C-alpha cells in the first residue's frame, strides 16, 4: 500500500465513491473469457457443490451436486465442468503465428496460437478452489477400482496450469474479479472488506440512490447478496441440509428428482447475483483503456498456452504433487523476474502508477530547459570520440537519485540516460543534467532525427525502473549440475496418487 493509495482511500471514505488508482487497465481482458462461479460444501476439502460457468453472460451453465458426499457425483460434476472448459480451451487452438525467442546464436522461430483461454473467478478463494479442484482431479486413474472419465484428469491438468499461472502478475490466464477491481480502484473500506465482491462493487458502482459506504453495508447481508463463494452462507446451508436430507430419504425416483430440482434452484439462486456481478465487472474493466504493455504480456500467455498444449500432446503426465527443489528454484526465479518486470511495465504505461515511484524518489518528472545536441566525449578506444548529447531538466520536487544512476524515460524507452549532475535550486526544485545514449535511429553523429532527442519545454519522467532488464539466468533444466541433483526427473504418478480413500 502506497501513500498515494492511502490518499485515495481516505478520499473515497469521505466522498462515498471509489477513487481510481490507475489511468489504464493493466490486465488483458479477453473478448470471450470463461467465467466460473463455484460453490463448495462447508467443512470438506474441496467438495464441489455447484457452479455457474460459461462464456455467455445471458446463459450460464448450471452444474450442481445434489449429494456431495457421494464420490461418484463429485466426479460427475468434474466431468460436466470438463465438457464445458475443455471445449472452450479447444476453441482457443486456432491458427498459429510465428514468433522468435532468444537472441543472437540462440535465436529460434516458434509458433503460437492466436488465442489463449482466460478464466475469471470471483475472488482469491476462487483461485485456491481452481488449484484444489485441479489437484483433486489431475491424479485420478482412468482405469482400475476408482476409475474416472478421461476428461477428469485432463480437466485437472488444465486447472492446475491456470492456478500455477495465477501466481504470475504478468499472466492473465486466471484472474480474480475482486483483485482486478481493487487494482484499479480504491474504496473507502479495508482491503479485507474489499475481498467481498458485492461490497467492493457497491463502492465502484453504487446504486443511484445510495452511496458506496451504505451500499457496501447492505451488500454484506447474505440474505440479499449471497457470498461470492466458494464458501457458502451457514444460514443457507441449513436450508440446503434439510433439502439434501429429503433428497436422500425420498421414497421413489420421481420424488427424488423433484427435491433435486429444488436443490438446483436454491443453489442457482445463491450464485446468480455473483454471476451478474462478474459480467458487470467485465463491462466496467473494458471501459478502461488497455496499458501499452498489455498486448505483449498476452503474447506471453499465448506462448505459454501453446507450449502446454504441445506438452500435453507429446507427454501428458500430470503436474507433480509438489515441485522438486530444482523446479521450485526455477519457478521462484521466474516469479521474481515477472514481478519486477510487471511493476516496471505498469509504471511505464500509467502516470498514476509512476507517481508512486516519484513519491518514493525512484522517479522524477521535469521540464527540459536546455539541450546540448553536439556533445562528444572520449570513447573507450584511445583518441576516439562518441556522441553523447545531454539534456537539462528542471523539476519542482526533490530528486532522490544519485549522480551516475542509469535511468529511463517512458517517453523514449529505447534511450539510455545517465545522471551527470543534480543541483539543488532555490526553493524546493532541482536541476538534473542527463547524458543520453542510443535511441537516435542508428545515427552516430548529430543532428538527432526529429523526435528522438527531447525538445526544450518538453515534460519528461525518468526512473530507475527498467521493463527490459535482463532476467536472471539459471542453467537449462537438462544442464542442472549434479551438485543440485542433476536434471529433475519428470513426475511419475503412482497408484497411490489415484487411490485415496473415500468416505
Amino acid at each position, binding site marked *: *500500500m*502506497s*501513500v*498515494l*493509495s*492511502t*490518499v*485515495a*482511500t*481516505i*478520499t473515497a*471514505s*469521505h466522498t462515498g465513491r471509489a477513487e*481510481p488508482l490507475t*489511468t*489504464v487497465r493493466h490486465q488483458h481482458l479477453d473478448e470471450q473469457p470463461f467465467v466460473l462461479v463455484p460453490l463448495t*460444501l*462447508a*467443512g*470438506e*476439502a*474441496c467438495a464441489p457443490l455447484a457452479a455457474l460457468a460459461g462464456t455467455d453472460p445471458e446463459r450460464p451453465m448450471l452444474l450442481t451436486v445434489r449429494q456431495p458426499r457421494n464420490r461418484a457425483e463429485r466426479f460427475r460434476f468434474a466431468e460436466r465442468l470438463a465438457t464445458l472448459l475443455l471445449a472452450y480451451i479447444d476453441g482457443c487452438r486456432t491458427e498459429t503465428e510465428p514468433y522468435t525467442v532468444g537472441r543472437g546464436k540462440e535465436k529460434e522461430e516458434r509458433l503460437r496460437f492466436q488465442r489463449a483461454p482466460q478464466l475469471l473467478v470471483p475472488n482469491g478463494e476462487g483461485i485456491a478452489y481452481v488449484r*484444489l479442484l485441479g*489437484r*483433486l482431479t489431475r491424479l485420478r486413474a482412468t482405469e482400475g477400482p476408482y476409475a474416472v472419465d478421461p476428461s477428469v484428469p485432463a480437466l485437472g491438468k488444465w486447472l492446475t496450469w491456470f492456478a500455477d499461472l495465477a501466481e504470475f502478475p504478468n499472466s492473465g490466464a486466471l484472474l480474480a474479479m475482486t483483485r482486478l477491481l481493487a487494482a484499479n480502484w480504491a474504496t*473507502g*473500506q*479495508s*482491503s*479485507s*472488506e474489499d475481498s467481498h465482491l458485492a461490497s467492493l462493487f457497491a463502492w465502484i458502482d453504487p446504486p443511484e440512490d445510495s452511496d458506496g*459506504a451504505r451500499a457496501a453495508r447492505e451488500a*454484506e447481508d*447474505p440474505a440479499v447478496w449471497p457470498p461470492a463463494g466458494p464458501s*457458502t452462507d*451457514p*444460514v443457507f*446451508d*441449513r436450508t*440446503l*441440509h434439510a433439502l439434501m436430507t429429503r433428497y436422500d430419504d425420498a421414497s421413489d425416483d420421481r420424488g427424488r428428482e423433484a427435491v433435486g430440482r429444488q436443490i438446483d434452484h436454491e443453489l442457482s439462486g445463491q450464485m446468480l447475483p455473483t454471476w451478474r456481478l462478474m459480467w458487470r465487472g467485465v463491462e466496467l474493466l473494458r471501459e478502461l483503456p488497455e496499458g501499452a504493455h498489455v498486448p505483449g504480456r498476452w503474447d506471453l500467455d499465448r506462448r505459454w498456452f501453446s507450449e502446454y498444449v504441445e506438452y500435453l500432446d507429446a507427454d501428458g503426465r500430470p503436474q507433480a*504433487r*509438489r515441485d522438486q527443489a530444482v523446479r521450485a528454484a526455477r519457478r521462484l526465479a521466474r516469479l521474481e523476474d515477472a514481478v519486477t518486470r510487471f511493476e516496471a511495465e505498469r509504471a511505464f504505461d*500509467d*502516470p*498514476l502508477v*509512476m*507517481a508512486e515511484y*516519484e*513519491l518514493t524518489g525512484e522517479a522524477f518528472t521535469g521540464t527540459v530547459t536546455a539541450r546540448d545536441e553536439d556533445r562528444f566525449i572520449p570513447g573507450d578506444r584511445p583518441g576516439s570520440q562518441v556522441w553523447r548529447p545531454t539534456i537539462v531538466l528542471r523539476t519542482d*520536487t526533490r530528486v532522490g537519485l544519485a549522480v551516475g544512476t542509469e535511468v529511463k524515460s517512458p517517453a523514449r524507452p529505447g534511450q539510455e540516460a545517465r545522471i551527470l549532475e543534480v543541483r539543488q535550486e532555490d526553493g524546493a526544485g532541482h536541476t538534473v543534467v542527463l547524458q543520453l545514449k542510443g535511441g537516435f535511429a542508428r545515427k552516430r553523429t548529430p543532428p538527432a532525427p526529429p523526435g528522438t532527442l527531447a525538445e526544450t519545454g518538453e515534460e519528461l519522467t525518468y526512473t530507475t525502473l527498467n521493463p527490459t532488464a535482463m532476467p536472471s539466468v539459471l542453467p537449462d533444466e537438462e544442464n542442472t549440475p549434479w551438485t543440485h541433483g542433476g536434471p529433475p526427473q519428470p513426475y511419475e504418478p503412482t497408484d497411490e496418487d489415484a487411490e*485415496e*480413500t*473415500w*468416505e
Partner: protein
Amino acid sequence: MPSQQSEHPDDRLARLRGPQPPQPYTARKITALTANPACARRAVLDAAGVDKALLAQQVGYEPRFGQSPFALAREQAFHSLVKWGSYAELIRLLREQLSVPVAEAHVTDLNEVGGNTALHLRERETRRLIAHVASGQDIRLILDRPVLTLQVAGRTAYLEPDALTHRIEGKFHVVLIRSFAAIDGQANPTAVAEAAKQAAVYVLALHRAFETASLPTEQISHEFLLVCPKDFSNRPYGRLIDLRQELDALQFQLSRLRRAEDLAAQLPGTATLDTARSAGELSSSIEALDASYTPSCLSFCEMARYCRDEADGCASPARLGSGVRNDLPGIDSTRTALDYLDGVAAPGEAEAEAVDLLRAAARLRRLRRRAA
C-alpha cells in the same frame, strides 16, 4: 466511592454481567483476546463472562457467525474416526510421530468420571491421573478429553484439549484434532496458526497443573500433535508443531489481561452489561469501554460490526486497515487528515512530516490524473 474500591474485582465483573450465567472461557476466546490485546472492551466483556453474541443482538447488530451443519457433521465424523476402534488411528499416529512402544496402549476416557460429566470432577480426576503418570506410578498412553484450568483475568477457565498423551521419552504432549485437510502435507496456514494458538493455551494450563502439584514442568513438551484429514480423504494425518513462540506471546498477553479488573473498576457505578437490560443502557456502558477496532475483528468478534460503525462515526484511520493507519501517524481521524490536505487546518509539529508526504501524494495524484 470507598464501597466500590473495596469491592472484590470478581464481584464487580459479575455485577456488570447481571444475573445471566457466565459464559465459559474457552481456548478460542483466550486466543481471540491475544489477537487484539489492546481492546479493553473485549477484555472486560470476556472477563465478565458476558454473552457477546446476545449483547450485540441487543444493541442492534446480529452477529453474522455460525457454523454450517455440514461443517459440524464433518467435524464430528472426523473426531469419531480418529477415536474409532479404541483409538486405533490416534495410536498409529502417536507411533509414527512419537515412536510410542507397541506395549503401551492404555487409554482413559475423561469425558466422564463414573458417569458424571461435571467439569470440576473431570478436572480433579485429570489432575490425579497426571500426578500418577508424571511420578511414574501409572502408565496411560492417552487421556481422552482431559480438563485443565487456567486463571484468566481473575476467573477460572476450564479447558478441554482433545487429548493428552503420557510422557513418551519423558514428555507429555497435547493433541488437537481438526477437520481441515492437509493436502500434500500442507494445511491452510491460517487454520494451523489458530490451532497452534489454542494448543498453547492448553500447554500453559498443563504447566499450571504441574506447578500446583509440584511436578517438574520439564516433562511438558513444547510441541503438540496436530491431527487432520489427509488430502481429500478422511484418513488421519499427524504432525508435531513447535509452540515456543505462541507460548511466549500468550504468557505476555495473559499477564496484561489482569487489567480487565482495573478497567471494569473505572466504569460508572450504574454501568451494566446485563443482556436483559435496554439497548440504551447497554450502549452507554459499552461506549464507556474503549474498543480497539481493526478490520480483522470482523472475522472473530461478535461485537465487531458495532465497533466498526463507531469507528466510522469518528473516522478512525484504523478502520481502513493498518496500511492507512501507518501512513497517518499521530492523526486520529481521516477527516482531520483531509482537512490538512485541503489546507483547511494546519498540522502540528509532530504531524508535519507525515502531512507533507500526504500533500505531495495528493498533488501528484491530481497532476498525473489530469495528464492521462
